[in-house]
């Protein structure tokens, strides 16, 4: 029975539970809702909750865990030799799963009947051809051990699904019966329902933690794989990035890190002065009319997706910089460059810096400004010597957040910065020329993980190590920035 149907059936039972519970509560009160402890609908919800919640929880847990257990017991039946041929147990398993899926498809399409499908043998039938006929993707010839494992897989899956259905329905019925039995006019249904809702609320809140755990675990796991295949020393200290899918790659993070930091630096050099001055002007000088026009316009920049900036870098800014600056000065011939990506990213960060700074400048109490004006300071003196120093911690926090954004930004660098890693062995001149293409950590994560990937090779797995490094760096910046900003807010609250 497909999961969707089970879920719908359980919900149907829950709905019946709602009405039965409600009626029973009213019945026990002699039809007078006022003598009930809770409103009648709470008795209904109580029954619904007890019917649906345990059943679906078990269903979900079963669906998540069973495939793993089945995989494990199936892989035990596969002979060692087969695994050795394919070099990797997970690849064999994938093949088994595909074969099992194709067999099911064959039965569904009527190519073979259920009985024969169980007794197929590679020597008597061309199973590979049969399975290909179903339109399934079968990459290599199906051998007898694989077929056997696939049969085992099908049998186990079938049994698991049957038990799953039975357990789910049994739980739903038990819950239903228990809830109905409990329903009585003095029963505190509202409290039970509210506790149930509270559990849902807590679970929803813990998704944030689960996400972080998921991020860290998924990357840690694959990164440890990577460091099993490639020395961590060479990864962190290597000055050369030249992946080669035939093996013998050099995967040093330093050139990528340099590219990332250099582009981020250019971006911040653009965004911080412009964003800060714009924020100062808008919050301190601009009249209501200018503010009503200019503030939203700058904020629009924040709402534009990064892919748009990427395209802007690719088709407008890149060629512009190449034709007007880089080529006349003989500094480079590439429209992809540190400058292109940095400038465009800087534009993207302007609203980020300006709106954060705006908030922070506005949080400086008016009394400070009055004190300065009262002494005869000009407006700019007040800003430079009183407002900005008072707002400094907050602004530093904003800049750190912007830096974290810049480091983690992907699309602009993918489309504007280029794919060639900095040549760190070519001397300083090569690596600080801003008109040269340079690649970043994020670009390489994308390029190593898109297209045909083999999750057993260091060239693919390195992306997870890069991702983890990126995560750690940005996490550090974020935590620092949030800490500074929070400290600053407390100061004026």
């Amino acid at each position, binding site marked *: 029975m497909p999961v969707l149907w089970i879920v719908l059936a359980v919900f149907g039972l829950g709905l019946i539970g709602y009405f039965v519970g409600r009626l029973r509560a009213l019945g026990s009160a002699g039809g007078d809702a006022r003598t009930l402890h809770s409103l009648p609908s709470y008795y209904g919800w109580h029954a619904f909750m007890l019917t649906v919640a345990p059943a679906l929880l078990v269903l979900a847990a079963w669906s998540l865990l069973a495939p793993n257990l089945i995989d494990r017991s199936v892989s035990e039946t596969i002979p060692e030799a087969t695994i050795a041929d394919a070099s990797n147990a997970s690849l064999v398993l994938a093949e088994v799963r595909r074969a099992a899926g194709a067999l099911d498809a064959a039965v569904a399409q009527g190519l073979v009947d259920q009985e024969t499908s169980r007794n197929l043998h590679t020597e008597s039938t061309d199973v590979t051809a049969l399975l290909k006929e179903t339109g399934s993707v079968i990459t290599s010839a199906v051998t007898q051990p694989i077929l056997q494992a696939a049969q085992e897989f099908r049998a186990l899956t079938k049994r698991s699904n049957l038990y799953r259905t039975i357990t789910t329905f049994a739980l739903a019925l038990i819950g239903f019966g228990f809830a109905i039995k409990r329903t009585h006019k003095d029963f505190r249904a509202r409290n039970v329902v509210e506790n149930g809702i509270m559990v849902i609320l807590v679970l929803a809140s813990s998704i944030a933690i689960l996400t972080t755990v998921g991020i860290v675990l998924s990357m840690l796991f694959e990164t440890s794989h990577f460091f099993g295949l490639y020395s961590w020393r060479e990864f962190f200290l290597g000055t050369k990035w030249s992946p080669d899918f035939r093996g013998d790659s050099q995967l040093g993070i330093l050139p990528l890190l340099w590219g990332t930091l250099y582009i981020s630096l250019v971006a911040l050099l653009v965004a911080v002065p412009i964003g800060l001055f*714009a924020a100062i002007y808008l919050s301190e000088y601009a009249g209501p009319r200018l503010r009503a026009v200019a503030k939203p316009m*700058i904020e629009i920049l924040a709402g534009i997706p990064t892919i748009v900036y990427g395209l802007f870098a690719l088709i407008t800014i890149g060629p512009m910089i190449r034709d007007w600056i880089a080529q006349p000065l003989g500094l480079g011939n590439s429209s992809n460059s540190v400058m292109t990506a940095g400038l465009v990213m800087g534009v993207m960060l302007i609203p980020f810096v300006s709106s954060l700074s705006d908030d922070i400048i506005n949080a400086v109490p008016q009394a400070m400004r009055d004190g300065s004006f009262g002494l005869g300071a000009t407006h700019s003196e007040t800003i430079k010597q009183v407002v900005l120093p008072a707002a400094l911690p907050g602004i530093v926090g904003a800049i750190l957040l912007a830096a974290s954004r810049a480091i983690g930004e992907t699309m602009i660098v993918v489309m504007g910065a280029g794919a060639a890693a900095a040549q760190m062995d070519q001397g300083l001149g090569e690596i600080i020329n801003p008109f040269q293409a340079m690649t970043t950590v994020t670009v390489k994560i994308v390029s190593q993980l898109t297209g045909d990937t083999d999750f057993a090779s260091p060239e693919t797995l390195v992306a997870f190590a890069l991702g983890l490094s990126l995560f750690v760096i940005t996490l550090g910046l974020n935590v620092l920035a949030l800490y500074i900003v929070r400290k600053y807010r407390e100061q004026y609250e």
Partner: protein
Amino acid sequence: MTDATSNGPTARAKKEHGSLLVQDALTKRRNASERRFRAYGLTAIGIGVAALILLLTSILSQGLPAFQQTFVTLDVVLDEAKLDKKGNRNIDEIKKVTTFGYAPLIKNGLKSRMEELNISIDGLSDKDAGGIISKEAAGQLRRYVIANPDEIGNSVEFRFLANGRIDGYYKGRVTMQSAERDNNVSPQQLQLADALKDGGALVTRFNWDFITKADASENRPEAAGIGVAIIGSLYMMMIVLVLALPIGVAASIYLEEFAPQNWFTDLIEVNISNLAAVPSIVYGILGLAIFINYGGLPQSAPIVGGLVLTLMTLPTIIIATRASLKSVPPSIRAAALGVGASRMQSVFHHVLPLAMPGILTGTIIGLAQALGETAPLMLIGMVAFVRDFPSAPPEGFFDPASALPVQVYNWTTRADPAFVERASGAIIVLLMFLLCMNMIAIILRRRFERRW
């Protein structure tokens, strides 16, 4: 405590204040620096606004032509001898004729149209003449015949897409000079196109197919559309909305209304503020590792994209919702509790409805962010070339699909410059969606904003 005797030094420091009506030199200098400072501020705003305008005009000027397309109108004789040799209109046999069988019919149609209009171009072979029509035309013809087998034998008028280079000629991308150097188009072909245009057989008109049709392969940019990408983005937005809104609201209610001050709450809070600033590509890695490699969900599927974007959008929605809940004054809660409502009832009956406009605004803004997100989707395989429309939900959620921003990226990696126009056009559509969403958010905020 007093210091009345220290007149000496202060008297020296004390400057005789001059008339107020005359500015002294120092004041003049200070005022000049004040003016400079203001000018810096104005310049900064000017640069910001100029960057926005440059960006928008660049995208608009590149992308607007994508909505116009050049078409060639031809009368095609659906030759029975070629399409249905046995003449029994058996649909299965008709289907066996491939697009190669249809191409000559189109060439003949073009030839007869040229004769009709008295066009003859020196040095233009029949093959080259046929080249001005998109390679997509044969497929279009075949689909028509399979849908209407009864028309075989008749002459039917068709509007075919012109080849991308011919289209580019009318959009200024291709010129006679560039055609000389181009292997894909010759000046003669352009002359033919001009002649057809004069004869009314070649027109440039609004191109709905760009919005509704699927992507096309590398060498036929003229046929590429964003239909699949729009559907894919739409599916993902549905998933994000259905998952992120309830989860986000539930989490916010707990954190804002019920959570005790303890380490668990602190942990959640720190997590949420950090997740809001984690680079989006990290979510892509998460999606790839957890949902695809571990969970076994299909690549390129909207369900995976939707899940990843949900996780990304949650912090935004939670932060907005909490701010909105916080702005409902405590007196409302006290009033509800005062008449004997439980805490849960006071929140769900009074606080939540009052906070709803703010929550919806935050949700729409979160959705808008998710709609424009590209990097994580690339990692879960959405860059793949997808020609087939996904089926209706819920099965469609598991079919391969593209997404608007990823489609844009995909097109920018292709060689033909016509795809740059397509990419910019797709961006315009994307920006229109974002504009609408933000407008709704602004209207919601204006309409329901409440000041306590």
